[in-house]
Structures are given as C-alpha cells and as structure tokens.
C-alpha cells in the first residue's frame, strides 16, 4: 500500500532537518520506527512507551481503541512522539509518502518543543525516559511474580493509586517546601512586622504559629502524602505509589502544553514543508492533509487549530502589526521569530492562552461557551464585547490540568482520629458524586483509616466520608 521506500524517507528527512535547522529549531536526536496499525494501537494503549508496567486498564484501552478502529469510528493518528532523548516517533507504515513527510516535519516541531519548553525541562529527564519506564515495569512485574505478593495484591494498590494519581502538584517547576521549611516559614510569618509607629500602636499580641499539624500547609501530592504518612504500608506498596506518581508527573507536561505543543508542531510543519518546494501533486495533497488536521471542529476545541492560529497571529503581530494593534498592545518589543522561540520556552497552555489569545482571534474562531441546561448543551455566550473575557476564562480553566479538580490534604489527624481530611477547592464546578464516592473509597484503601472529603455540591458545603462502615455524606454548616 505504501508508495515509498525507507531510503526515500531518509532523503526527505535530511532535507527536512536542513530546513528545520535554518529556521532555528533545536532538537534531540530523532528515531523513527515504522509500524503497522496493530503496533500503533499497542503504543497508543501504553502512551507510546516501548515498555510499561502491566495493568488491566491498558488492556481495556487497547480493546477500546481497537474496537473503535475496527468499526471505523476513529482513525489512527499519523504519528506519535514521546519526549525522550533520543526522541522516538512512530510512523504508520500504510501512510502515503506525503503524509510521512508531513509527519516527519511535525515530529521535529514536537521534538524541539520537548527539548526547550520549561515544563518538560523541569519535570522530566529526557535521556532517562525509556529506562525510567522500563525500570518501573520491571519492579512492578517482580512484585507480581513474588509469591508473597502476587498479581491480585499489586492490582489492588495500582487500582487505588490510579484513582488518585492526578491529585498531584501542577507546576513542577515550583519547588515543594519540605516540612521544616514550612515550619520556618510559619514562624517567620508570625513575627510582628517592623512598625515605625509602634510607640503609638502598642505591641501587637503575639500569636503562636501552628507548627505541629501535618501537613502544615495543604499538600497536593495526595499519593505521596499517603506514602509518607501511612506507617502500615509495606515497602513494595510504597514503591508502587512512587511509580504511579512518577509516571503521572512525567505525563503532566504533555497535558499542560497540549495546545501550544500541537500548534507549534503544526506551525513548523507548514513552514518546513512549504520551504521544501514540493512538486505539484505532493503540494496539493499537502494542502488537503494540512487542512484536515487543522480544521476547526465545530462545537469543541481542536488544539491543533487553536494553537496554530495563536502562533501565527503572534508572529504576525510582531512583524507587521496593524496601527490598531500598536495602539492596543503597544509596539512589538522583539521581532516575530525571537518572540516565538521565547514563548515556546517559558509558557504553558494556561499562560499562553491568557497572554496571547486575543479578542480578535476569538471572534475569528467564533468561540462560544456552552452550558448544560436540562438534557442539552446550550450556547450561553459568544465572543462579543461582553462575552469574550468570560469565555476565555472558561477555556483557560478547562485546558491541561484545569480539567482536574484541585484536592489537597488538609489534615492527617482530623478529630485526633488519624482521619485523612481532604478538601476540594471548589471553583464553581461540582464533583461528579458517583466518581467521588468511589475514588474516596480508593483513598480509604490506601490510607487504611477513615477518609473525608470536603466539597460543595449544588452550592451546599458537604463532607463525604468513607470508613469501615462504607460511604456516608453530611452537610457542613
């Protein structure tokens, strides 16, 4: 089916790299693996990793992907890249030559992004990626084979850990303070401020800071907190929690930069392929394919499209701004290209959208906000003068980790009963109760004592409890 030889791909790859270097992209060494659809499905089920610890949920993912693929509901992606050094990308064997060219160019965009964006640089070590996953896989397999542990027990922990895994710190570039540092900070905070008029004001009453509570400051790393503060966990159980936490944090940057990353890769694949001077047949196919990837999907957000639009707009505003724009945003401080490379390094989706998604762009993309009303989703705001700001806020809240509720450990000895007190930081969006109940049960499984979750349901503060008697719920005043 394929209309190319691998040697041709190598030639094209050389030309693509030449162009990419001219544009100033900077990437890890690249490896391409050509695979068939079964291989691709396999990689997709395991997030692209050549080795990964076993768990039934990946079997389910595979089964589901395969069903959707077999029934023609979903196609397969043209490529998949993982952020390792060397970066590994998978190419679908049955794609046409043009698709391979487009994909290769696209992959270099991602590769450059992985190497330079701060979220990846601060959270992952690309040169260890493959070994990291492999070592995890081996450890988990060994626990499963150990006659005193076995598959069932390992799964019990993994199931529970998976349920809580996204409840972790969101910005890994910010260092987490240790307990001692938190104590220090609390004591410092309690010192009276220097006051030149103290003679007039009198000495403020000294309030002793709380330093004995654990955690002192609410802790977002729920899994790690349980690992470090439940003395009844065995070493292998702690290790499993560590593994799940580490893997989640590995994938966090991907989640946090979906729009930027896809937009960036699309922006550069377009530049590169256009610079390649393709013959007419290939060029027409390129235009068709490019537009297929970047077409807006009415009713939802296509990260390729939104990202691409913002990057393009950013470049244009810094090279040939209209007088109106100069009036509104000031004269550009940098030339377009420098600006692009700076932004790809220091932003993530939330900040990227907040800073560079303009009212004009939103109007051009006809962005709207919908709300559930009864059984239907109804548009309640469109990008006009009144609505655009709110729509932008909603969009920012729903990208990346914004779609995961913020839940922190507030107290590990609530009511002096070793009850784990979790608090959901409510921002207008309620938790889905059925899922909250089951997830709390998993927290109980790991913590071994009662777990409670403070949240707000339909504007009423509520406390969900899970203990040895099962689930219960009560209102808080």
């Amino acid at each position, binding site marked *: 089916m394929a209309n190319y030889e691998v040697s041709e791909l190598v030639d094209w790859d050389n030309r693509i790299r030449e162009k990419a270097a001219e544009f100033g992209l900077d990437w890890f060494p690249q490896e391409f693996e050509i695979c068939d659809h079964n291989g691709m499905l396999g990689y997709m089920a395991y997030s692209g990793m050549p080795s990964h610890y076993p768990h039934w949920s990946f079997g389910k993912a595979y089964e589901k992907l395969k069903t959707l693929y077999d029934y023609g509901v979903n196609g397969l992606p043209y490529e998949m890249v993982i952020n390792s050094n060397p970066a590994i990308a998978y190419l679908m064997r049955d794609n046409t030559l043009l698709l391979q060219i487009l994909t290769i160019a696209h992959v270099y965009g991602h590769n450059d992004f992985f190497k330079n964006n701060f979220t990846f640089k601060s959270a992952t070590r690309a040169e260890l990626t493959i070994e990291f996953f492999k070592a995890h896989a081996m450890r988990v397999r060994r626990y499963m084979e150990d006659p005193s542990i076995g598959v069932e027990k390992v799964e019990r922990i993994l199931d529970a850990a998976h349920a809580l895994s996204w409840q972790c710190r969101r910005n890994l570039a910010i260092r987490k303070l240790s307990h001692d540092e938190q104590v220090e900070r609390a004591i410092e905070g309690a010192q009276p401020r220097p006051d030149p008029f103290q003679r007039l004001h009198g000495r403020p009453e000294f309030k002793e800071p709380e330093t004995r509570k654990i955690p002192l400051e609410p802790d977002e790393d729920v899994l790690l907190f349980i690992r470090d503060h439940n003395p009844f966990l065995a070493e292998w159980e702690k290790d499993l929690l560590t593994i799940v936490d580490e893997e989640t944090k590995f994938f966090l940057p991907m989640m946090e930069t979906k729009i930027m990353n896809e937009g960036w890769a699309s922006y550069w694949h377009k530049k590169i392929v256009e610079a390649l001077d393709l013959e007419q047949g290939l060029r027409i196919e390129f235009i068709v394919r490019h537009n297929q990837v970047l077409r807006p999907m009415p009713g939802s957000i296509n990260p390729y499209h939104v990202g691409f639009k913002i990057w393009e707009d950013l470049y244009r505003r810094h090279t040939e701004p209209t007088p109106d724009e100069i009036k509104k945003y000031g004269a550009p401080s940098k030339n377009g290209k420098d600006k692009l490379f700076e932004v790809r390094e220091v932003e993530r989706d939330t900040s990227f959208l907040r800073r560079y998604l303009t009212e004009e762009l939103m109007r051009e993309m006809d962005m709207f906000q919908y709300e559930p009303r009864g059984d239907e989703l109804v548009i309640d705001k469109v990008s006009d003068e009144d609505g655009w700001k709110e729509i932008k806020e909603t969009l920012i809240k729903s990208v990346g980790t914004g779609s995961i509720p913020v839940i922190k450990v507030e107290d590990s000895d609530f009511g002096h009963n070793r009850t784990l007190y979790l608090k959901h930081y409510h921002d207008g969006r309620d938790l889905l109760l059925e899922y909250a109940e*089951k997830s709390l049960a998993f927290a109980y499984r790991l913590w071994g004592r009662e777990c409670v979750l403070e949240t707000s349901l339909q504007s009423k503060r509520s406390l969900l409890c899970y203990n040895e008697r099962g689930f219960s719920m009560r209102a808080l005043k």
Partner: protein
Amino acid sequence: MNDDTIFREYRPSDAERSDRSAGDRLRHREKVRESIRENIADIIAEESIIGKNKDKVIKVPLRGIKEYRFIYGENTPGVGEGDGEARPGQVVGKTGKDGQGKGDGRAGDRPGVDYYETDVSLEELIEIMFEDLELPNLERRALREIPSDRSTKRKGYRHVGIRVRLDKRRTARQRVMRALATGRREDLAQVESTDENQGAAEEELQPQHAPGAVLQTLVKRRFPFHQDDLRYKHLETDIREDSNAVVICIMDTSGSMDTMKKYLARSFFFLLYQFISTRYRNVEIVFIGHHTEASEVTEEEFFHKGESGGTFISSGYQKALDIITERYHPSLWNIYAFHCSDGDNFDSDNPAALRTAKELAEICNLFGYGEIKPLGSRYYESSMLNVFRRLDEPNFQAVLIERKEDIWPSFKAFLSKDRVKE
C-alpha cells in the same frame, strides 16, 4: 549539529511476535467476567438460556469496567469553536450520556459510559456461574475419585522459584547480558580483539557476535552470578480426576403441575445437571416421574408429558432408592437427587415420604426438595415444607421457589448443604 536520525524499518516478523497488550487484555477480560458474575442472577432468570445446548453463544450486555477518579460533574461549562454562526441559545449537544460524541474538548474529562456486548458461550457462562458458588469441597469418597491424569505444564520463567527449577541456560545468558551491559571498556576491547584473532577461521560461522569470547573474558575477569541473573522455570500442575456422579431428577407429574411449575423445575434441574457436569468427569442422569406411582422416563417424557391424578411422593423416592441399589452403588457413585413438587401430597403418604426421604438422604451426597408455588398460591395449598422440617439430615435441603428469580438463590442454598465430611 545534530546526530543522524535513525529509521527503524517495519519488520512483519517483529510485529507478529509483539502482542504486548495480551496479558493486560486477559486481565481486563477476567474483570469483565467478574462483572458478568455480579449480574449472574439476572442472566440466569432469562428463560432463553435454560435448556440450550452448550455451544450456543449468547450476547450479554455489560457495563464497562470503570476507572474512577475525581472528576467534574454535570454543571461544568465548556468552550467550543463555531462555524461563524454561533448564537446564544443554540443547542450544541447533549449532556451526560452522549457527551462523548463531542470530540476532544469534553471527552477527556467526562466519564464515558461504555457498554460492551460480550459474546459468551453457554459453557463459559456456566463456568462463571459456578465460580461464584465458592463451595466447600464437595464430599468425595476415595473410590469415587481417582486421579487419572496428572500433568505439569511449563509456563514461562520467573525471577523467583525453588532451586531445582533453576534454568541454568537462561541464568547464564542473563549473566552474560549483565556482563556486557556493565562491561568496562577494556573488557569489551578485549572481547573484540579476541574476536579478531579467532575471526579468520570462524568468521563464516560467527560474523558478528562471539559469545564464546565474551565468556572467556568473563572467566578472566571473574564475574560472579548475581541474584538478578537467576531464572526459574515456572510449572503449573494439572490434575484430572476420574469420577462418577449421577443426578436423579424426581418430579411430580400429577395434574396439579402446570407448565409454569414445570418450567421452574426444569430450570432447577438444568442448573443442577450443568453444575455436576463441571465437577465430575462421568455424569449420568436419571429422570423419575411420579404421581401415585413412579416410573423412570426419558427426558422428553419427563418435561412434556402431563399426567393426571393424585400424588404419592414416597413412590418417587422409593423408585429412586430402587434404581440406586440396582445401578449406582454409593461407594462408586456420587449421588445427587432432587425432587420438585408443588407440595400437594396425600396426607396419608406423609409418614412414608418422610421415611424414604431419610433413607435417600443417607446414601446421597446431596438430596433436595424444591417446592414450587408460583406466587400467591402458597396460602391455600398444602405444603410439604412443614413435613420435611422434621427431617434432620445435614445434607438435606428444602427450598421454596415462587418465581424464576428465586432459582439461583435456592440453588445456592441447596448446594451449601453439601456434606463436607462423612
């Protein structure tokens, strides 16, 4: 400025060999079976499966196994791109159930309701049903069960195991691999140089690798085995037993047994027979119909031929006893007897029935009585349940079946009486 890109070509042989998700798919499938097991009572109540032959494939709709996390609920607003025509008030989709159809924007943070429809063969279903029972080991007498076939199967390799199962070849290979992986440069250089020396003669045989050379170097450098190198063969044993069982189905075929009652009885016998078949290799089945007299009949007659007249339950039991003495000696056969009736016995027969029932209970592994009273009828008809209450045998169980949903619970109750010890 950058290293060269590597292209790894597609090799069909690799693709065929690497079905990496097989193990996880299997575990997932087991989970799905568990969920079938949870709904088993509903599935059993389906009339369509009773009396089907074993190869019949039935479709069972199932909810997918959910992966729970903390997620946002229904009141979450979202953002979409429009086609330039978006106006407030326009409907763009459905909430909840169909939320998935909306594409990337929402699919990720919504729980999908996955419905699988799984094909399960009846045999598999029966297997699942009985896994559910978790019975104490059925009483088995020495002669009734002879291990006829004990085999061990090799099943993969493990890092841990007992010493006799150490796979020396693999262990050695692991050690070589580790040696190569940790190899110091000079060692490798040495390997290469020895390789070259020998090369001239052996080149055709070993163009690339020379494991022999590596080993030689290992010997020189003393590279001992490590715990991590050890590989053990993993064996699984499979014991098959030769065992005989007979299922004696006794049913009241008097005039008062209508079609509905017979259907319920039939469901029960069906389950019993299927269950016994999974536990014993050689299973025979005997049908006894009775009204005032009992006779051994064929399956066809048993379920379809209506008779009329009154009922002497003792006649059925006596017939069963006769057949057992004649053909199924209790020391060689596991005997399971079950009697279904609507409980409408002649009063004068009750003492005889009780006596024969006691005798039956003494020689059977399990003896049960199921009183079939479609809902409502139990208040004005006489019942044998009161009579059998006086029968105090540990392996006797009387159950009441009022509707088809009762079949599975009563079946479980019946089997729970199985004698553990003699």
